[in-house]
Each structure stands twice: as C-alpha cells, then as structure tokens.
C-alpha cells in the first residue's frame, strides 16, 4: 500500500550531513540550451534529475532553472563555472547556491520522511527520476530520490541559514526512530 505507517525498524536508518561538494545554479530562458552546449546531459522534463557521467546531480527545477551538485570525480562544475563567468550569455542568469546537503537512507527511510513532510515519497514515479520541492519541518527543501544497491536514499538540500535547524531537527527525529545521525551536528 502507499505510505505504510508502521513501526520504525532499526535497519540502518541514517541521516548524514554532507559537506564539501560544490554547487552551481543558473536559470533563464536560455539556460537549458547553454548547459546542453557545455556538453551536459540535462533532464528534459521539469522537476526531474539526471546523473552526469562523473556522478554530478543535474536537477531541473521547473522549466528554466537548474541546480547542479558536483559529482565524486569533481569534473563537472569547474569548467562549467569558468565558461559561465567568461561567456555572460544573454538569457542565462546565475543562481548562487550555498545549500546545506543531507542524505537520508535506510530501510525505513520513508517512515522517517513521513514524520518530516507531507509528500508521499513511496507513491512517486521513481522511474521518472523526480525532483521534489517541498517543505520539510517548515523548511523549503529540494529532494532527489536515488536508487542504490542498498535501496532507495534521499538527497536533500536546503537554504544554509536553515541548515543548523534542519540538521538538529533531523538528528532528533532520526534518533527517536532508532537511527543514527552523522555530521557536524553530532
């Protein structure tokens, strides 16, 4: 059934505060064309995401805004930022991104999410690689569900000024659910 509400299990439920990955944002009527022109495979549908070859997350927010988080290999953003600074392309505007990032994972991660926000993550069409923009414990967040061999995990970003609040709140809730929290807030 969609959105089970049962007891929270103990199997690896974890919230992790991520750090260190560079971010890039841009928007405007020509943003999609410009990013494609830089050799980046961008998602076609609004509010979906794709992974670049080096693991970078490329999220399309609405129709004309893009959010990119550097991949593990760190090969995507530097050339992109350099090209953007040099080009000053009409119709492509910078969006400063200084977000805090978190990862939520574990068998009962959707049970945890049900205590945090009102999106039914289980019912999402994960085959479409959706991006969810919603409020979580009162904070606007960007959520990307990711499939891994260990199961589904959720990567989320928030405005950095909400970061300490969101982190400490996640820490409290995941602790009550029997999970663990990793990161600076510990």
């Amino acid at each position, binding site marked *: 059934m969609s959105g089970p509400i049962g007891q929270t299990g103990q199997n690896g439920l974890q919230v992790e505060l991520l750090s260190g990955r560079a971010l890039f944002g841009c928007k405007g009527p020509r943003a999609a064309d410009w990013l494609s022109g830089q050799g980046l495979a961008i998602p076609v549908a609004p509010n979906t995401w794709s992974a670049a070859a080096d693991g970078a997350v490329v999220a399309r927010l609405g129709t004309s805004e893009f959010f990119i988080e550097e991949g593990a290999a760190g090969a995507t953003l530097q050339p992109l930022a350099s090209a953007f600074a040099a080009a000053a392309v009409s119709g492509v505007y910078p969006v400063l991104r*200084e*977000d805090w990032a978190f990862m939520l994972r574990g068998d009962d991660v959707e049970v945890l999410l049900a*205590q945090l926000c*009102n999106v039914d993550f289980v019912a999402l069409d994960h085959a479409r690689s959706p991006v969810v923009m919603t409020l979580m*414990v009162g904070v606007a967040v960007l959520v990307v569900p990711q499939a891994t061999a260990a199961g589904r995990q959720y990567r989320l970003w928030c405005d950095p*000024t909400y970061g300490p609040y969101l982190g400490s709140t996640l820490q409290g809730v995941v602790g009550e659910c029997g999970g663990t929290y990793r990161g600076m807030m510990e």
Partner: protein
Amino acid sequence: MMYRMESHPAEWIVRSAPLVFTFEGREVRGYEGDTISSALAGAGLPFLARSFKYHRPRSILSFANHDSNLLFQVDGVPNVRGDVVPLRAGMQVTAVNTFGGLAADKARILDRLARFLPVGFYYKAFHSRRHFPRWERLFRAITGLGVVSLDAPRQSTPKRYAFCDVLVIGAGRSGLAAALAASEAGAAVTLVDEGARPGGASAGSTGIQELVDAVQGAPRIQVLTGTEAAACYADLWVALVDNTRLTKMRARAVVLATGVIEQPAVFRNNDLPGVMLASAARSLVLRHRVAPGRRVVIVAANLEAYETCMILVAQGVSVAAIVDLRPERDADPQEPAVQDCASHGIELLRGSAPYAAVAGSDGVVAGLDVAPFDVVNGADAARVRRLECDAVLMSIGWAAAAQLLYHAGGRTRFDDGLQQFIPEEVPDGMFVAGRVNGVFEPQGRLADGRRAGLLAAAHAGFGSAAAVPAVVPRSGRRPSHAFPIVDHPQAKNFVDFDEDLQVRDLENAVQEGFDSSELLKRYSTVGMGPSQGKHSHLNALRVLARARRLGPGELGLTTARPMYHPVPIKLLAGRSFHVERRTPVDADHAAQGAVWMPAGNWRRPEYYARAGESREQSIAAEVAAVRSSLGLIDVGTLGKIEIYGPQAGLFLDRAYTGRFSDLRVGMTRYGLMVDESGVVVDDGVVARLAPEAYYFTTTTGGSATVFRELLRLNALWGLDCALVNVTGHRAGFNFAGPRSREVLQSLCDIDLGEAAFPYLGVREARVAGVPARLMRVGFVGELGYEIHVAAGSACAVWRALLAAGQPHGIRPFGVEAQRVLRLEKGHLIVGQDTDGLTDPLEANAAWAVSMKKPYFVGQRSLRILKARGPRQLLVGIEIDDPARIPRECHLVIQDGDIAGRVTSIVRSATLGKAIGLAMVVPALAATGTRLTIRGDGGEPIAAAVVPTPFYDPRGERQKAPGAA
C-alpha cells in the same frame, strides 16, 4: 451493583494477568485487557466519580470514549478517559471534581443547593465589574475536572503524515464491508476504529468475526485500532489520533461508517450510579465480563433493547423487566427478540416510562419508579409503580455520529421516521454508510458498506461507479424514540451529564429568549462539556422543539467543530518544530557574547555582553563605537534578491514606488513598496549592477513574502526577467563608522575614495580575498559599507573585518544599537513605525514615490489617498524629561481622545535626549506642537514635535569625504 462475572472464552481480559492499581488511595485489582473504568466497575465500587456542577455521585454511563462522568487524574495526568485507557499495573487513579476525596467530597452540598443555581445564574449574579475578580477566583477554585501540573515536563510526540486510497472510519459491520469492497476493487485501504479491536458496537454479533477475519487477512487493508478520526479538513485530510501521536492522513476517498451514539432517556435521577446505556452494559459484559447488576431493568424504545436483554440473559444476568416507552402497537411484538424476552418470563411494561430512579443507602440505584406514558400527555404520576433493581439500562435511541461529515462541509436533514439526522449533502470523495446513514438492519449495513466502499474505490481510481447501487433502503422501523423525556416536578432529570443540566434549565433558557439551538447552547452551556453534546444535543433539541412547538428538523443542530473527541495538547503540538534561521556567522556571534533575540524567524544578537557592563552600557558602548570610530553588524537577515533580464528595470519600476530603470549602473536607490491599497509593506535598497542586473534588499521580516509576491507579479506581467532569491545564500554586514573607509581599504582590492566610490554607490570587489558586493549606504548615519558575500565565505570576511578594526576599537553591534542609531537619523522601520494602514504620504516618504511613472502597484490608490489627505503623520518627538520616557505603543492624548501613538522611542546618549517617532493626527504634526503621552500608569508625559533627522540633519557624516 456491578460485579465481575465468570470467565468466558470470548472475553477481552486476561485472567492470568491481574493488575493491581490504586483508586483514591485504595488498592484495586483488575486484569490485563481492562480499561480503568471496567476494572473499577468489576471491583464492585459503588460509584466512581462526582459530577461537574452538583457533585452528584456518578458511575459508568456510556463506556464509549465520550463519557464525561469518568475522567480521572492518573499519575498526575488530568482528564484521562477511563472508558478507553487501558489499565496498567501501579496506576494511581483519583476522581476529579472532588474536594476531600470521592466519598467525603465537601462540595456535594451543592446538590442540595441546585435550586439556587439555575441556568444562567452566572450572568445574573456575577456581572458586577467590581466584584468580578473575586467571583472569578472563586469559580476557578470550584471548577472541576483534572488538575494541571504546571511542573509537568514538555512531552514531545511524533506527528506523521500518511496516505491511502480509501480511508474507512469505523470498523463496525458497514465499515468492515466497505473496507473489504474497496480492497477487492484494488484500492489501498486504511480502516480506523477508536475501539481496541475491530467490530465496533457489533463485536460479538452474528457474522461479525468472519468479517473481521476477512479484513485482517486482506492484503491491502491496514487496520488501525485505538485510533480516533478526530477531525476532517479540506481535501479529505483526516486527523487520526492514537495514544501516542497525531497522524495527518490524506486519502483519495473517505468512507464514514462512524455509526451512531446511544442516547440516554431523560427522567428523574437518570444519573444515579447503576443507570447506564444498554450499549455500555453489552460491552462490559461481553468484553470485560462485568455485569451491570444482579437485577436489571431495561428502559426500551427499540428492538436493540430486547436484543440486549437476551444477550444478558444468555450470559446469566437477571433481567427483571423491560419498560417500553412505546405503546403495544409500536413495540415490535412480532420480532423474535421480543418474543424471546416474553418467553423467558421477563415482564414487559409497554406504554410505560421510567418516572424516577431511586437510590439505595449506598447511593446506587435500588429501584425504578415507572408509570404509564405517552408522548402527548407524558407520564401518569398518579399510577407510579416501583420496580426493585440494582441496574437500569437505557435503550431508547441513537444520534448519528456525523460530526466528521459536518467538519468536511456536509449537511444533514432530520428524518422524522428514523428520528435521526441523516446525510443530505456529502462532500465530493466522501461516502457514508451504515447506521450513520440511517441503515440499521445488519444485512442492510453490510450492503450499504459495500456500496460505499465500491464508490470510494471508484472515486480513487479503482473500478467503476456505474455498476454500484446508488442507495440501500433505510430502515423501515424506528430505532429512536421521538421524545424519551419524562417531566418530574422535582427535576434532576438530566439532559446534559457534563454540565448537570436538567430539563427545566433548558426550558427556563428558552423562556428567557434563548430559543435557537445556538443561543440555547451558549446560554445554558448544553453540549459544551467534554463530551461535546454527544449525549445531550438531540435531547436538548427535543426540549427546545417542544417549547417552540416545532420539529427538531426545523431548528437544526449547532455547528460541529474539530476535534470530535478531546485531544491532548501534546498530540496537537507534536514535536513542536520551531523554525529558526541562523546567519553564517552565528557561532562567531555566540563566541563574542551575543545575547539573542528573535527577529522574524531569525535569531539575531540583541547586543554583545561584556564583563562588567550592563545591558544598557553594552548597547551604549556599541552605539558610541559606531559614532566615534567603527562598528560591525550582521545584516545577513535582510532579504536579498537579484533580478536579471532586459526588462528587469521595468519590473522594478512597477513593483516599487520609485523609478529604477533610470538608475545608473554602479549606484543604489532607496526602494519603497506598497500594496494595491497604497499601504507601505516593505522597503530596502536597490542596486544596479549592470544594465540588465539589479540586486536589492528587503526587510528581514518581509523577505519571503516579498519574494513570493514578486514571483506572482512576474508571472502576471510576463516580463522578460528572472528573479533569484539569495537571502540565505549571501551574508551581509554593515561596516560603519568614521574609520570604516580606511580600515576596509586595507582589506579591499578597489579604490574606496570618494570619487571612485561615492555615497550610494555599489561595487563588486574582493574583501579579504573574497568576492564581495559593496554598497555605500547610511542607515546608521555614518560613513559605512554594506558588504555582501557568499554564505560560505562569511566567517572569513567577518573575522578579517574585526581583526582589521581592532586597532580602532571596533565593536560588533547588535539590533538594539542599530535601533538607536537609525532612530537618531529618523529612519523608519516598516512594520514598527508603520502599520497595516500607513501609506507613504503618512510615513513622510512621499519623496520615494514617483507618481509620474505610467504604472506601479498601488499607484491608483495613492492618487486617491493623496487627494483625500493624510489621516495621520509620522513625526519626530522629543521627550521633555529624559528620565520619564514613554514606551512604544503608548498613546498620544488630545482633549481626552486618542490622537496618535508612539512608534519608536530611545534614550540617545549621543544627543543626551529621549527621542522617538510618533504617528499623530495631522493637527498635531507641526514642529513645536506640544504632545501629551499617556504612560504606563496613566500619567501624562510631555513631549514636543521636532524635525528629523535628530542627528547630523544634513547627512554630512555619511556623505562627505572628510566625515572622520
């Protein structure tokens, strides 16, 4: 008297698990599976509680989660509902509404004073303003229910969201059938019931266990017992409450199978311990093996009374008589259950009514006086006969449990045949089934449940509604009596057990003119107790209808509002998330001794505490540092928005009152924003970074609202521009004071000289090696620079600025110092010096309005307002005696009338004066006008209107190159 019966295979209690607890300090034994009430009843205690108003002895009435008689104080927690809360070993239970214990309650004398406490006596006796505080204290002391411990720790509870295709509320016969049908159609179903087990009032009835088994074996049905559907809001989100949490359930479709609530008969002493609803007795006997008494009389007006009788007889309970309010012809004589009762030798008194219950020496019912009865003439008091008994069960009718339907916006009508309100208009996506829908026969409830389940599934996208029967016929018989109310000259015939309201109380209220349902409720308080009228609304309506010679349907019920049951505040509060924003240099503030204050949802330093300084001294020193040398404040809480595109300037021209399309690149301008009615809603600084790029700030509190409104306007106008909210992604500092230029120059890679970077200029530069946006603005009235950097670089820049300023005695300053500094300059703060009606003309900000523009938001209104003239004006004030200053919001008084208010006030060490801003009527706005301000104690405080700015009126310190 109630007692524990022999064990039975179907009982809910576990005999092998006795639980010992205390009640009123006395040790009592119950069993696992008991509720508090069933354990107390099983222990044979004569009475368990006192009533709210008259402190009459009370015991079980409904045993159905809405019995206000049985609220207890349990382990310090007030108002625990004994009917449903499971018994635990070691519980310490005490009765509420007592002074000196249950048995020796000193307030029981109130029962003898009842005739001096008629309906509405509060309003009549205690209206004196002079004496009201005394009465208030008295009534607060007398008022019952539980005792709230102010020392109780905050209890955090985990709220959650949940989702399903079909939510079925009520796991009785029709609810179970609905859940099965919806599930079979393919829907994911959640079935909730407030009972500890599914089955509802039908538990133990023929065929019900098979239904329960089928539901529990169905793959797509989740069953939540012990869970109340407490409220239903828009878009079919239903608040589900269990012992530990609130669940916000969003369902695509909802089936209401909430059943009916049994109603009491109204007769003298119908509240004695031992008088209870028949449904309560059934539950006690079948689930908890507690017999209602050893010699039972049943007051009847429907078939269920006879079915209850046979259940009791089968369980070995002796039934002495059935007193049926209906005449012979209406009393279902051919029904098997009726004939069974007769064949068991049970005396059937038809066309009779209980006239009065009689108490024994222990306060428990010991007899029932019955009399011939008909609806038109009432009871024949001349022909009363006494039946000896120790329990009286009432089975005279029902009220629809339709509260959730009302919450969702549905409507009902009164069905005279059923004597019940039944659904008339049901919201889209909601379906009603079973007895709440007026379908009473078991097979009919099954069919109705199935119908509703299939329709709900179809609404949720599973199956088709076309093949589903539209309706199931409602009951042909009448399950509820039209007027189960018996008058008695000595009253004590209670309609409302929560508030101890008798028939004559309601009649008196009607007599006094409170003759509608809503007025009667408010005047008499009927239905306003913990059970919220579940037992009293319908009978009160009948009393009202009789008095007004109308039918109940012509009067209607009062409005039902959430919650359906009382819900502990802790469950509503959940984890109490309090969103708090922190700027990137928050930890540095803390290290520097910040004393925090909330500003919107931010936490900001009010000031920085230093050893040996008081709060006032610290604030004064921070102000002095800015005026004399150098200060640094974190202004990262300001809204920060970028706008790009060929029509960005045009957009700002429309959104703000000023003109920005002609702003030179590299310069800033004050921006004032009004709404469509011309009211000031925000302000800030707009900077032009490039021909098609602007950067602007908003107020701290207004940033989210302003950005949302700008997005709306952008979508509306369709201009070629894009907005970016960087409020949280950019930090901002104001580096201010005569030394600011030279110190900043040492960290900066551009020329800060007056020619290269004039007042109101904006520049991109590097500060301490970090890319930064600098704006030369003067909010605090000194040479100064706002420095905006990416959040990730903020700490480095903050620390570099403080380090560079160290030789000059730099001090970080907080919000309080900034308030003083800006007020010395006469700068207003939107939302503090303006209110929800202030326009720019009144705020002395007409200079920031360009009426020549073709259009801007609020322009039309401002034209009208300008023609009308201001109703108030913002002026500077100076207090005569700096030792006696008013407070913000104190009133300006002229000729005894309110003529304005103080909006800002400070004691300025710089100026050696108490200064402020006040919004006053235009007649008082001229410079030199004397004002009288009313202080805290009503004393007059003298002030005068003076020009602003108070400090550096020509602005030389912030503009002139030689300011230092």
